[in-house]
């Protein structure tokens, strides 16, 4: 499963990071709390979130997240975009709500990134 597969299923658009779309996704983390994300055990996870801050990018970068999808039509702020560019982390946007996005990815066979 690649980021591109998820992008299609979520009807998402790419904000930045076209070159990272073929990265492999092993699991999904869905949260608006950075602490929950930090407690995730696996790397190579796709992060679904409604939290639009540069800290989300920092968290994904430190944890080895492969891409971030902002739900509910959110658009990341410019400084988050700049940071994501440096680390090659694709930022995507979908109009889907968090729950719907989770359901669709579960339908693809993806599972929750296990906690530490």
């Amino acid at each position, binding site marked *: 499963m690649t980021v591109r597969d998820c992008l299609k299923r979520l009807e998402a658009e790419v904000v930045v990071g076209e070159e990272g779309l073929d990265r492999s996704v092993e699991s999904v983390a869905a949260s608006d709390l950075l602490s929950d994300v930090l407690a995730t055990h696996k790397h190579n996870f796709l992060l679904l979130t409604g939290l639009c801050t540069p800290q989300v990018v920092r968290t994904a*970068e430190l944890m080895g997240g492969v891409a971030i999808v902002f739900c509910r039509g959110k658009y990341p702020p410019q400084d988050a975009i*700049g940071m994501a560019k440096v680390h090659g982390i694709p930022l995507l946007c979908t109009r889907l709500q968090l729950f719907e996005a989770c359901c669709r990815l579960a339908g693809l066979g993806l599972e929750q990134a296990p906690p530490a």
Partner: protein
Amino acid sequence: MSDAATIQTLHTDAQNISIVSELMYQLKVRDVMTSNVATASPHQRLRDVQHIMRDRKISGVPIVENQRVVGIVSLDDIIRALDKGEIELPVAERMTRNVATIGDHVSVVKAIDEMEKRGFGRLPVLNKEGHLVGIITHWDIVRKLIVMLQEVALQAEQRERSLAPPATAPTDHSEVTILEFPVEKDDFENAGRASSAVKKHLQQRGVDPAIIRRVAVAMYEAEINVIIHSLGGVMTARIYPERIDVTALDRGPGIPDIELAMKEGYSTASDRVREMGFGAGMGLANIKRCADRFEIESAAGAPTRIAFTVSFIPAPR
């Protein structure tokens, strides 16, 4: 979506709107206008104006005499003239006099207002002496805003690429490398940079990725704590061949009840901090879980010192 995220959304949208409107108030007409304006004199013919419009691909030409704007001819005027067979007439006979203009020192917001009020798509721009110095259209404004927004992203990108080198150059004794980072109170913009720099260093050393993750998470939590809860401090990483020791030492105000602070879910973080997605009260517990050794010293009114160790040799956990 959680309340924190909803509030964050409103803030982000408000931030983006206010960034744009701040930009627009800061921008003056002269920052945005096109300077080499195509003009014509009142003694030229309408056909000459038609050719100017065709060649420069514009739809409005200010008519100028002695550097002063005395009229303006629009594409509509030309079409009407062609229709009535008047295209050879002198400009002076068909130009619109009493032209709406705008000063070059005026804010772009005001310019947009004027264009809106008058229903004109362009305004000739005059300097304080009343001379024509440019012309401003909607498209000029949009293009400038796009460039400025991209600037913000570009600057963030450059800042991130130049991840601040450690406060003191790594002192490479044969056994230990020391990396030191000052961390400022409430410096959310830079939160995680120290952790990111150490992660990079460990990657270069070829440390096992799963171990690097634990170090990164623990250090990030410690870094955020210094930023959120303390008056500022220093993070120091000491990297040995077989392990890393990290210390976060702040300048106060200290933790009155350490046991309570260690409880998962307990947090003294402010609402503002929670809106950013922090402050769930998992930090200290998370550090302890990630590390092989964990120490915390603090008291009300005193500095807090957190120290943890992660071994590079994978051990059964």
